[in-house]
């Protein structure tokens, strides 16, 4: 029961953050609500037993990536976005009902489908750092090394792109 309770609390938190991201006009407010979403998702990962993923979600996503976002927002002095000139009628007539219909259908399929009804074992720690490392450095060694090259290229690309041209 406690698992349901925690799932719904953190799920509602994540949803509230995601909706607030859409509702806010100022990018800083959107960034802060995205951090709430990421924290709530880290709690969901802990519920699923993925310790390592939960920790790097906090450190890498909520820590590093969002700090980068906030630095850029402050650097560019981004203000509130201009309000659009009224929403289109097509969006109200077709867009939102279609979105609602697809959402309900998707939820129905996902919840009613047979394998989806099987409960996920909660709290059984499958994602401890030891197990992840054993996988990462044996069968997934090549992709792991390739990501280091990717990160190196990304660092160089970021420096080249953001450099002031003379």
């Amino acid at each position, binding site marked *: 029961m406690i698992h349901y309770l925690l799932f719904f609390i953190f799920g509602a938190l994540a949803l509230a953050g995601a909706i607030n991201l859409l509702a806010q006009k100022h990018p800083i407010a959107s960034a802060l609500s995205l951090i709430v979403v990421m924290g709530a998702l880290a709690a969901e*990962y802990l519920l699923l037993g993925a310790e390592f993923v939960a920790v790097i979600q906090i450190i890498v996503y909520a820590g590093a990536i969002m700090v980068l976002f906030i630095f850029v927002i402050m650097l560019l002095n981004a203000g509130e*976005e201009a309000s659009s000139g009224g929403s289109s009628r097509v969006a109200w007539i077709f867009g939102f009902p279609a979105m609602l219909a697809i959402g309900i259908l998707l939820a129905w399929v996902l919840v009613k489908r047979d394998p989806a009804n099987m409960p*996920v074992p909660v709290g059984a720690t499958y994602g401890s750092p030891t197990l992840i490392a054993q996988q990462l450095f044996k069968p997934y060694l090549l992709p792991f090394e390739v990501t280091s090259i990717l*990160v190196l290229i990304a660092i160089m*690309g970021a420096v080249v792109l953001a450099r002031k041209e003379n």
Partner: protein
Amino acid sequence: MVPLGYYLVLSAILFACGVAGFLIKRNIITIFMSIELMLNAVNLSFVAFAAHWHMLSGQLFVFFVMVVAAAESAVGLAIIIAVFRTRATLDVDRVDLLKL
């Protein structure tokens, strides 16, 4: 013992929020944050399936998604800085040089 479907529905709703933000937002930084939201929603599906099938591969894929997201955000924010430097705006409606 929360059913797998609940996690998938939460993931789908978060992904839909990301798509909606990508479509309705006009500030380029907020659009970029919507992309991050979509990546997070996919990660939740990965972890839920990994726990469901007792396979670690899902969590390793989350690790790789996070690495790619970090690289993508570094390059993307550099591009945003470059765009702001040349066009002096963050409004995507006003970055329309390729528009016919």
